[in-house]
């Protein structure tokens, strides 16, 4: 219920929202949880395993129970914490993990069979008969598992990623964080203050206390105003720092638009790089494991205070409080002061000092609770006997656990601090980070304020900056006293992990079955494996495990907290990588022209290249491809080859450099000539191939395959900087500078001459010539090289003219009976001629294997030469490149198929080789293949069996030379 005059939302605008189809009113600034509690809704969800009715346990991001779905259709977000979700007009939320509805959930039958589902249940099912697993357990577990469900639709809403940099990152904006930010900012540092709450202030918003003589919330607002006015401060609210990574890098999740209707980015995943950091993440209150401690209405005492003092909501009308420490008393006092009936304060300590206008039970314990869908009463056992108290809200406090999570992200193990019966961070766990305030185990406001100043000063000092003098504001400075209370024995289940339904009994069972290591216990029981990652339950579970195994808590250890601190949606983490952001698209200058011709595009690396150019009447890609192959062989074709890597190599040692990176020799290449080159890796296998032209004495231009362009560039830089730094050579990529087109076919020279200002002829420009040309006054380059076996040229112009030249050339080609050809035809043309691509030089083949061993010159050193001479790489038994022709011309060949002797069984031990490239050759009117075959070069003429086990294809083939067409090269020289 809303308590008139209480909280910070006084005067806030009303907001209408829907939960499970019912409309409610809340206030601007409410979370879904505070608004539902204001409307006396206590039941908010069902637990993971037993479908137990659950309400809200906390008031923050650590909430394990009140998880809801927000939104509808593709915009629906499951597993949203109601304690964090701000309400806005029209927000539509629903409970999860129940059917048909929250009050009557069929799967709550699980709760009745819970004895069979205790710790280790999943593992034990594996040990039972297989038929049981497939028929019974798996379908059952799949049906029951999971909390919220995804819509199954593509999420079209925008998510962001972003980078930020600062001197000091302050995580958390409670008293310690505010003072740390103020100190660092006044000291002149660039500060980012991040807090996951919509409103900054941390616990100062949730308590009724004074700081510097003002109400804490007012003081907070004043400090924030000062920070807001400073140019070196960036306030990031709704931003959870999710992980601490190497070298001052932090991940942070910002809820950008989740608190309003869906437009604009929903979330942003930040990578924040900070020179130093202050962790002021506060502390989380832990529940107490007493019998049936999970009923809706039972929550932490700090959460009850937060709902009352911040949101002006009392989660109950008759509230009881159960604690083992003084801090819990504040809840009773604040409620009583606000006029809420306090039905009883139960303190487990016999010597607790409490005064207040409410019944007090010292040395008391709760031994039972009742209420199916919400708490109705509790049974208290105390010094004076046992009594039943009617209550609809129980505020419990087992003490506070410092939020050490981020300090564990780089393997730091927290230390046990007996005074607070909890862990504190180990100093230096994250280089550059200082922990302050209650995250450090300091629980008074005054102590936190002072510690924030101290921590920021320490960080400033480490950055070589001077810490300013900051006056410590006055604030409460009470000592924190508690007596550990992990469990209250009694009949009924005592819940630890509220989301995963782990009980005290499960922990003890794990210990009994010898899962004594904390990591084993965690996996056996699933303790701490829910979306809250054990924030509410790990310390208590550990204490119980220590007790069950007869060890102390420090000896028992702690589980490792790993990133992220809160769940991060995949959409946020992968922001910028969806759709077109997945990878850059590279378009050639002829892209538009190819697109206009209806050419389907194929991706080659990041490039988009035309597959084929369909013409009216052509029904399949093969029709077009065959026509384009015939066109090139009979007249002329034009193809954009700009995607091949082009690398300019200049310098006095350019020739020496090329002799070293290529297996063959380039220093002997005359100016104005082109040579095919083979590049090896240092281990003797082929890296890449391509042609290199010598444009001047000290100037070459190398081409690489499209696929390996980036790799080769890096390799050349490696050779120039790492291996041969003494060489005077400069390497510059010119791939993008030039648009380059292949013109292939018997009429290629006529087409080229139609473009050139000065014609070329065979005598002045023979096969493998290169030189400068003018294309309508534009300086270009011409190369007489061929990847088709036909007379062919490649003509290059500065890229700005590429689109124009392509249109002119394809139009001219068409007037000559030719036209453009695509990747499919290009592939057929090269297979017919036995030219290799990365299908053949796939990283495991050598020059010897592809029949080019004589290209490894032994007259000089080169990368890969020594290794290529190794025993085993030059043996005849190796798989060698061969051609395959099916005995029946139309019989299928498939790339990836394996080769076997004609009579041999098609099993691994009989494997003779494999097929790398196949095509239908319209020139030879047969299917063709390139393959690697053991002793292949000696087996030309032999009949071999191709077997494709996947596609169930078997074909008898004749082994032949890989050059199917014009082995003498007469067409080339034309």
């Amino acid at each position: 219920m809303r308590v008139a005059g209480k909280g910070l939302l006084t005067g806030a605008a009303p907001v209408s929202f829907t939960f499970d189809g019912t409309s409610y009113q809340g206030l601007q600034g409410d979370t879904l949880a505070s608004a539902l509690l204001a409307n006396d809704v206590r039941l908010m969800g069902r637990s993971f395993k037993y479908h137990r009715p659950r309400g809200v346990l906390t008031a923050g991001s650590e909430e394990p129970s009140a998880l809801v779905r927000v939104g509808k259709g593709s915009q629906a977000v499951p597993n949203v914490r109601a304690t964090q979700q701000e309400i806005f007009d029209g927000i539509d939320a629903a409970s999860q993990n129940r059917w048909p509805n929250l009050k009557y959930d069929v799967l709550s039958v699980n709760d009745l069979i819970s004895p069979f589902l205790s710790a280790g249940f999943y593992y034990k099912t594996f040990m039972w008969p297989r038929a049981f697993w497939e028929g019974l357990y798996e379908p059952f577990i799949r049906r029951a598992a999971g909390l919220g469900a995804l819509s199954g639709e593509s999420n079209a809403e925008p998510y962001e990623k972003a980078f930020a940099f600062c001197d000091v990152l302050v995580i958390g904006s409670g008293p310690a964080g505010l003072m740390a930010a103020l100190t660092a900012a006044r000291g002149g540092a660039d500060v980012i203050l991040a807090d996951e709450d919509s409103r900054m202030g941390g616990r100062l918003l949730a308590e009724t206390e004074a700081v510097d003589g003002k109400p804490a919330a007012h003081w907070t607002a004043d400090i924030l105003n000062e920070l807001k006015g400073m140019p070196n401060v960036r306030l990031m609210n709704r931003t959870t720092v999710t992980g601490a990574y190497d070298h001052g890098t932090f991940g942070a999740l910002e809820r950008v638009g989740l608190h309003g209707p869906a437009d604009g980015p929903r979330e942003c995943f930040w990578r924040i790089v900070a020179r130093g950091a202050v962790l002021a993440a506060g502390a989380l209150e832990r529940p107490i494991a007493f019998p049936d401690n999970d009923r809706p209405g039972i929550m932490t005492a700090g959460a009850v205070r937060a709902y009352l003092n911040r949101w002006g909501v009392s989660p109950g009308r008759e509230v009881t409080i159960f604690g083992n420490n003084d801090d819990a008393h504040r809840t009773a006092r604040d409620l009583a002061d606000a006029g809420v009936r306090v039905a009883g304060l139960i303190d487990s300590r016999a010597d607790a000092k409490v005064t207040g206008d409410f019944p007090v039970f010292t040395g008391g314990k709760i031994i039972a609770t009742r209420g199916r869908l919400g708490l109705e009463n509790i049974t208290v056992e105390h010094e004076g006997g046992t009594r039943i108290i009617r209550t609809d809200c129980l505020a419990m406090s087992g003490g506070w656990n410092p939020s050490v999570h981020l300090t564990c992200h780089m393997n730091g193990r927290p230390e046990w601090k007996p005074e607070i019966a909890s862990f504190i961070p180990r100093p230096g766990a994250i280089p550059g980070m200082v922990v302050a305030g209650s995250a450090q185990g300091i629980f008074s406001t005054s102590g936190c304020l002072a510690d924030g100043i101290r921590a920021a000063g320490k960080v400033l000092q480490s950055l070589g900056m001077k810490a300013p003098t900051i006056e410590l504001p006055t604030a409460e400075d009470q000592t924190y006293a508690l007596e550990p209370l992990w469990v209250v024995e009694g009949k009924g289940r005592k819940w630890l992990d509220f989301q995963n339904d782990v009980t005290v009994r499960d922990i003890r069972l794990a210990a009994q079955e010898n899962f004594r290591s904390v990591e084993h216990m965690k996996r056996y029981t699933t303790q701490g494996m829910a979306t809250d990652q054990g924030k509410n339950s790990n310390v208590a579970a550990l204490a119980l495990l220590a007790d069950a195994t007869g060890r102390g808590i420090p000896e028992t250890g702690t589980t490792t907290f790993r990133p992220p601190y809160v769940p991060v949606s995949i959409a946020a983490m992968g922001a910028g990588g969806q759709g077109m952001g997945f990878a850059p698209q590279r378009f050639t200058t002829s892209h538009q022209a190819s697109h206009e011709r209806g050419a389907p595009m194929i991706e080659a690396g990041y490039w988009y290249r035309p597959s084929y150019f369909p013409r009216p009447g052509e029904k399949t890609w093969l029709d077009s491809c065959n026509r384009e192959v015939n066109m090139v062989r009979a007249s002329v074709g034009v193809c954009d080859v700009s995607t091949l890597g082009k690398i300019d190599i200049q310098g006095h040692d350019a020739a020496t450099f090329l002799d070293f990176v290529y297996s063959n020799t380039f220093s002997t290449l005359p100016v104005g000539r082109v040579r095919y080159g083979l590049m090896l890796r240092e281990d003797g296998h082929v890296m890449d191939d391509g042609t290199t032209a010598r444009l001047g004495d000290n100037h070459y231009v190398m081409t690489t395959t499209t696929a390996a362009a980036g790799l080769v560039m890096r390799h050349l830089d490696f050779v120039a900087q790492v291996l041969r730094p003494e060489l005077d050579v400069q390497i510059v990529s010119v791939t993008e500078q030039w648009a380059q087109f292949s013109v292939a076919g018997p009429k290629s020279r006529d087409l080229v001459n139609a473009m050139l200002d000065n014609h070329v002829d065979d005598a002045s420009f023979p096969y493998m010539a290169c030189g400068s040309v003018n294309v309508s006054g534009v300086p270009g380059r011409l190369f007489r090289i061929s990847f088709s076996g036909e007379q062919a040229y490649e003509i290059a112009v500065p890229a700005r003219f590429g689109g124009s030249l392509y249109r002119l050339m394809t139009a001219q080609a068409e007037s000559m009976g030719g036209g453009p050809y695509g990747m499919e035809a290009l592939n057929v043309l090269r297979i017919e001629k036995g030219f290799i691509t990365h299908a053949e030089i796939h990283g495991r083949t050598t020059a010897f294997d592809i029949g080019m061993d004589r290209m490894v010159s032994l007259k000089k050193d080169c990368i890969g030469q020594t290794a290529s001479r190794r025993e085993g790489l030059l043996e005849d038994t190796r798989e060698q490149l061969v051609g395959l022709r099916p005995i029946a011309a139309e019989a299928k060949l498939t790339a990836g198929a394996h080769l076997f002797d004609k009579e041999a069984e098609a099993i691994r031990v009989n494997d003779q080789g494999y097929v790398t490239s196949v095509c239908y050759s319209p020139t030879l009117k047969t299917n063709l293949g390139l393959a690697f075959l053991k002793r292949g070069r000696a087996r030309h003429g032999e009949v071999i069996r191709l077997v494709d086990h996947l596609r169930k294809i078997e074909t008898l083939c004749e082994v032949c030379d890989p050059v199917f067409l014009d082995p003498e090269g007469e067409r080339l020289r034309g």
Partner: protein
Amino acid sequence: MVKLIARTPLDGLTPVTIGTVTVTEVTLDPMTMIAPFKNQLAKVDALLKAGDGVGFPAPNRMESSDGVRILWAGQGRALLIGADAPAGLRGLAALTDQADASACAQISGAGAVDALARLVPVDLRLSHFPVGQTARTFVNHMAASVTRTAPDAFEVMVMRSMGQTLIHELTEAMTNIAARNA
């Protein structure tokens, strides 16, 4: 006689204005990569200063004078923009025409730096990345050169073939920034 028509890399894709941020194409013509050969840096620097008024830039810096700019472009190399390389450089440095190699966009206006902070993993705070600072880095997945030309203006250069993706990435970031500020 054929007639070739020139097209700029971002032809038809700019200008784009979303919210307070505008993207326009920057033409880089002429643009020459200058990579001095061994032990020639001092001579190259002197000749550049004498010829074009800008010396060979230090790493991560851009120098400009009278519409001529020279931009550091990686180890031992720089891009001379807006003027031809002095004739005397031939033989002292590898000179490579790059006028057609890049797509270049200027992104400017209040929020330009926020849009780039969505794409560029580099510290772009004015105090750390002042006017005249350049970085070889990435724009999302693209290798890029990012240069600050004014407190709220940057030039972003990527491979010419990636121009369309560049505009897509920038406009997406700008759209998100505008929605946040709405």
